[in-house]
């Protein structure tokens, strides 16, 4: 067994996101995107209440015309 080359964090994240072509052709943009996604996620406060419901709330479908229900 030969030694494996350690992957960068960017490469691991890109592969996990299914980005293989982009990792080869646009590595700079992929690295920027990872940094941007972290900035975006940190740009607002999560609600303090852990049970807060997200928007929009799920709504059950209205029974269709002719429904047997």
């Amino acid at each position: 067994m030969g030694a494996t080359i350690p992957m960068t964090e960017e490469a691991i994240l890109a592969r996990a996101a299914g980005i293989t072509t982009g990792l080869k052709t646009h590595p700079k943009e992929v690295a920027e995107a990872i940094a941007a996604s972290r900035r975006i996620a940190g740009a607002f406060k999560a609600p303090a209440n852990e049970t807060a419901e997200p928007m929009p709330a799920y709504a059950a479908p209205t029974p269709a015309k002719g429904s047997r229900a």
Partner: protein
Amino acid sequence: MKALHELSLTEASAGIARRRFSPVEYLDALQARAEDVGGKVNAIVRPLWDEARAQAVKAGRRMARSGPRSALDGLPVGLKDIIDIAGHPTTCHSRILLDNQKSADAAVVARLRAAGAIFPAKLATHEFAIGGPAFDLPFPPARNPWNTAHHPGGSSSGSGAAVGANILPAALGTDTGGSVRHPASHCGIVGMKATYGLVSRRGVFPLAFTLDHVGPMTRTVADNALLLGMMAGHDALDPGSAAHKPENYARQMKKGLRGLTIGYVRHFHEKDQPASAEMAAALDAAAKLMGKEGAKIKTITLPSLNEFAGVNRAILMAEAAAIHGKWLRERPGDYANLTLRRLLPGLFMRAEDYVQAQRRRRELVAAVEAAFAEVDLLLTASSMDVACKIDDAEAVEITYPRQARTPFNVTGHPALTMMCGISRAEGLPLSLQLVGPSFGEAAIYRAAAAYERAAPWKDLRPAL
């Protein structure tokens, strides 16, 4: 006396009704205008003048026979090229969709067509309504009619440029993070993002499902109200469509400002994203004029603009990634580099981040709703700066957070932008934004029309 191409929709409608000119003569004047100045602003990506001319001939005959179908009968409306029209491709200004031929009209186009409107052009957009002014796409970017070295705003860039340049009296844009109101602000016209769900999105290429709106862009408030009235209405085939009856949005327009309380959201442009001195002064002057015209002006505090922007971006990125994921993974090089950089972060957003953004969204909606318990409308900045140079990539990038439009995509409240001055330094439009409670479009138009009458900007047009 105005030339035909300078007429507003309302003026053109009256001129046709009085038989001063025909729909064909009006359309021909617009085509001549497009041939004269179109190459300077690059607003049109697909001209449809011949098809529109045939529609104008039919409209003229129909009107002679049985009168107009509506105030829009025989009048032209441009379409951002992410909105479907039967028989033509919807390219989204992208090489990925150059052959994306459509066989049916978008629901909003079908409504306008039924009212007699005609469609002479598909208009430039930032690629997929997100990219930005890019020079590595099949079509050139639209340019600002006030100074063609400058950005017209986006993503409905061609709609703003065409209406601002008097090539068309009206156009449709779409708005997910401000994309109707940004070009309206920079091109000195009126742009409305109505309440979420008021206008059907069916047949419009999505950017982010829970933030997308289709909106009218015109040179006057009256035209905007007229066009929205023809566009609005429930669509059972659009899952986000609101069960709200269309209204006559112009019904309050002569009432003036007396009796309205307007909440002035100063902290957006004074603290959260400090505006240029000229923009801040123009907003203060607009508030003062509205007060003089009879409105009660009250300072209102909302959550930070940057919180709204963060939530908008997290939701937009995640939803757009679900749409673009396959292309981003398989053919990233087919996007403009700017579009690729805008869309790629969405593939790295965690599911938890998206849900947290949707939870915070509910709190932000509640905060804006609470404000509407105290005031009838909100007055805010739209852009913090005038339009930057179109080829200054760094300045274009800075534009995106320096605006106060995204809050009302997050909340879904209706919001209109219009001109409130001209920059002395650069000769470019300054702008304001009026925001109303859900389905409060008529009150927004009332205040906007009163401001338009009182302020001296209405007849200022770019000298192309």
